[in-house]
């Protein structure tokens, strides 16, 4: 529908009067695009390509020469005696664990809240605003806040529980903290998206289900869940990617502790590439992560599509 409007108006504009010749219209279009395209070429296209180039070199920031080594940086990451292989895959495991632990919570809890908000509750908008609010705060703000609240000796959480749980320095507590804080911080995002999805499900479907004698649970399973499918696919994918890109919480709250167990892939790549200056290896790692994430996204789309059939 929207696309028709464009073509119609564009044609209607160009044809009958023939005001602007085609060549001039093209020039106008490129002039409108130019400022953005300059930025886009300089800071998106160039780095995406030069990142690949860098990954084919032993590129250390501190050394003057960057010898070409072909795929060595990639191969090293898959060979047991590669210099960075162990640490890289440890960080990938940490990222994977965080994804597995956080994504279900970030789907189920917001879905529950969205179902509550989808009733005609008074002040629903106020609740929605409150639930979304932490998401607009920066990761540094929420991190210093929770490091304070979770401080083993001086923090409010242990004081209230009457416990001395090492929230940020020992596993499994460090994972509990990272997942819990992430849920607290970002649950509003998925809640509002799922709520919009719920509102898009026709009331007729619920009525039809009720007429067929479906109870609450039955209509949730055969009307609500299928109706949410497209939105759910979107939310699952974005949540997977967001969790796989987790950096700030580990960097600031657990600082990778204990040891390097909660150091995520992004944290390790950023540290190798920009902290230690191992740019070639870090660029290779970032492309491996990219390929894995692309694969996971495609797989997720396929799975969700197949279950619909």
């Amino acid at each position: 529908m929207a696309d028709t409007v464009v073509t119609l108006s564009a044609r209607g504009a160009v044809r009958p009067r023939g005001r602007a010749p085609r060549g001039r219209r093209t020039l106008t279009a490129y002039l409108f695009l130019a400022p953005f395209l300059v930025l886009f070429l300089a800071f998106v296209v160039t780095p995406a390509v030069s990142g690949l180039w860098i990954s084919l070199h032993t590129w250390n920031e501190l050394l003057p020469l960057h010898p070409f080594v072909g795929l060595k940086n990639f191969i090293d990451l898959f060979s047991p005696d590669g210099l960075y292989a162990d640490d890289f895959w440890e960080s990938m495991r940490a990222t994977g664990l965080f994804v597995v632990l956080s994504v279900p919570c970030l789907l189920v809890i917001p879905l529950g809240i969205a179902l509550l908000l989808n009733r005609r509750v008074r002040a629903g908008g106020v609740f929605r605003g409150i639930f979304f609010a932490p998401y607009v705060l920066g990761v540094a703000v929420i991190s210093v806040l929770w490091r304070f609240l979770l401080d083993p000796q001086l923090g409010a959480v242990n004081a209230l529980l009457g416990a001395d749980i090492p929230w940020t320095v020992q596993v499994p507590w460090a994972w509990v903290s990272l997942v819990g804080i992430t849920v607290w911080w970002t649950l509003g995002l998925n809640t509002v998206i799922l709520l919009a999805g719920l509102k898009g499900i026709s009331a007729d479907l619920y009525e039809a289900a009720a007429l067929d004698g479906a109870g609450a649970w039955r209509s949730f399973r055969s009307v609500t869940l299928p109706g949410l499918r497209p939105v759910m696919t979107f939310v699952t994918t974005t949540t997977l990617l967001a969790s796989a890109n987790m950096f700030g919480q580990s960097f600031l709250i657990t600082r990778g502790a204990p040891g390097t167990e909660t150091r995520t892939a992004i944290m390790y790549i950023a540290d190798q590439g920009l902290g230690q200056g191992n740019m070639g290896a870090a660029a290779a790692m970032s492309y491996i992560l990219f390929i894995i994430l692309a694969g996971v996204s495609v797989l997720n789309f396929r799975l969700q599509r197949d279950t619909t059939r």
Partner: protein
Amino acid sequence: MTSTLDRPAPVADGPADAAARPPRHRRSFARALPDLVVYVALVIIAAAIVVPLLWMLLTSFRTDFDTVTRPAVPIPDPWTTDAYRTLLGGAAPILRWFANSLIAAASQTAIVLVTASMAAYALARLEFPGRRIVFGALIATLLVPGVVFLVPNYLIIDRLGWLDTLWAVIVPGSAGAFGVFFLRQFFVSLPGDIEEAARVDGAGDVRIFLRIVLPLARPALATLAVLTFLTNWNDFIWPVYVLLSPEVQTLQPGLSTLEGSYQTHYGIIMAGAVIASVPVLVLFTLAQRQIVESVANAGIKG
């Protein structure tokens, strides 16, 4: 897009509507619960969200001794503004960080509004060879995770002599394709007749863009401005690595520096966190509906 931004509040939000509600005949899982249970659940969740934030605010008005000796109670005894005095009195360049964050976020927002609206106009309303290629390239880059750009963009910034300057946190981030998509979606949905009438009157593309399309797109531009400002204000990983001197830091990395230098002086650290939160919370309160609905809409369209 038009309809989304302008549409009346979803039914669930209207108190009047809730009061005049007909007897319920829809039954779904949540609907089977009594209202009271729903409210209790919502209030408990809201408390879980709000209490930590209140704790942060209240702690910023406490003395260190008070915070450390009564960790289970958030109410200050005595109330003090010492933390803010210490911070603002120059103990850390927090005012400088605040100004840097403001300059960076405002500049990036301005760049994005200008460049993205122009590009979106071309992609939505003009026909030109290569349009599909440009559009395809934009879509493709949206799928690439940010970490891929980290090392190469660092080298580009270094080459430009922008390391350790605010340019580093203003310019590269404004090149993302999101703003163009967001506005294109809106421009595509604008009706064509006003534009055609203007063309008949002899108006060119520049005039149509400035006088017709931009004014009509004001809600979308405002939403994009708020989203861009928030994202830039809260950015962390990039400024941590490209801003090194204390005077050029922005608030987010500055806050973690603050934590390093004040350790358990939690009043001061929480005061810093409050200072970093106030602008975005104010912005969120003012533009709540636009922010929430544009985000929710992304999911439906996605």
